[in-house]
């Protein structure tokens, strides 16, 4: 039985105090490039108070379809982002994966890939899911490569789904099946 389910090589998954998360989120939100890589909702900034209320509501509700974690570096214990399995469809054994590293100094260091490995192991050996899905914007090639490395397979594109900077962009969707993950692990 794996004793360190939430630990990877470079990062570990954590649960944070709402105040800590709120402060981090509202700081990262100021980086509009980060926001536009993460989300299709118009980039906006929120007060720390509001973000804290949302985080508390999520943590209070204990939604059965949401598993949300912070990502901390193992070397310095620095909070660098968040990762989640959201919208778990239990009867079908499937969930959506979302990740964001809000601290741009961390991009390109393998932290994202490591966090994804940790959460896939959690999804397939603790939640016993059979499939994990995700979507990613065409203009985020770094993330696309990261997902490909983690074993996700391209499944299609929602053409011209996004409208940003005067251009239309596709949203790519990818998936990994448990049997595929078992071969890589």
């Amino acid at each position, binding site marked *: 039985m794996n004793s360190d389910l939430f630990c990877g090589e470079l990062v570990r998954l954590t649960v944070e105090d709402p105040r800590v998360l709120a402060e981090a989120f509202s700081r990262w939100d100021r980086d509009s490039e980060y926001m536009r890589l993460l989300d*299709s*909702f*118009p980039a906006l900034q929120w007060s720390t108070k509001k973000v804290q209320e949302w985080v508390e509501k999520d943590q209070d509700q204990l939604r059965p379809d949401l598993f949300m974690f912070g990502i901390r570096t193992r070397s310095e214990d620095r909070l660098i982002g968040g990762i989640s399995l959201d919208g778990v*469809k239990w*009867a*079908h*054994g*499937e969930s959506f994966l979302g990740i964001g590293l809000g601290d741009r100094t961390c991009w390109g260091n393998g932290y994202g890939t490591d966090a994804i490995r940790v959460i896939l192991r959690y999804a397939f050996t603790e939640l016993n899911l*059979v*499939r994990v*899905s995700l979507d990613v914007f065409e203009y985020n090639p770094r993330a696309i490569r990261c997902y490909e490395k983690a074993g996700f*397979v391209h*499944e*299609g*594109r*929602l*053409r*011209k*789904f*996004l*409208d940003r900077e005067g251009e*239309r962009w596709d949203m790519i*969707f990818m*998936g990994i*099946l448990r049997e595929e993950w078992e071969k890589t692990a």
Partner: protein
Amino acid sequence: MRLTAEDPAVTAEQFVRSNRDSEYVRLLDNTEARLWSVKKVKEWLEKGFEKETPATFTFSIRILESDRLIGFVGLGGVQWSQGDAWMGIGLGDRQDWGKGYGTDALRVLLRYIFTELNLHRVSLGVFEYNPRALRSYEKAGFRMEGRQRKLYEREGRRWDGIVMGILREEWEQLA
């Protein structure tokens, strides 16, 4: 076909009735099939109206000839800044399937979406085990954009989820 707005009491009755047909429910929705009382469905619909959001539009479908209420069609997850939305449709009574009602309701909805809401793109998901709907969407102009492999499990096996989309420029060429 015409698209209408209905009293929650009317929609609730229709919903509960069609909800008893488990094949309909499983063609429509990936959530586990459940049964509901009319009282509860009516309460939810009323609550839903109170918190009307600008990101959802639901219409009932009535046949022009007889004015019979046969189903619903709707838009959800409208992202105004991106100009796109997801749509869903359901005809609750199997005697109404295969008559062109769905395709016609889709035409009305798409016209509304592209000329009234001025969106740029409509997406939808359909179960691999629903070929009738797939054909209907293709006829209406939707293109297959990919498959989420083995997304669903029902009746002891796994099924793909098919994703389709139509762009405004494609729709304009059809009309």
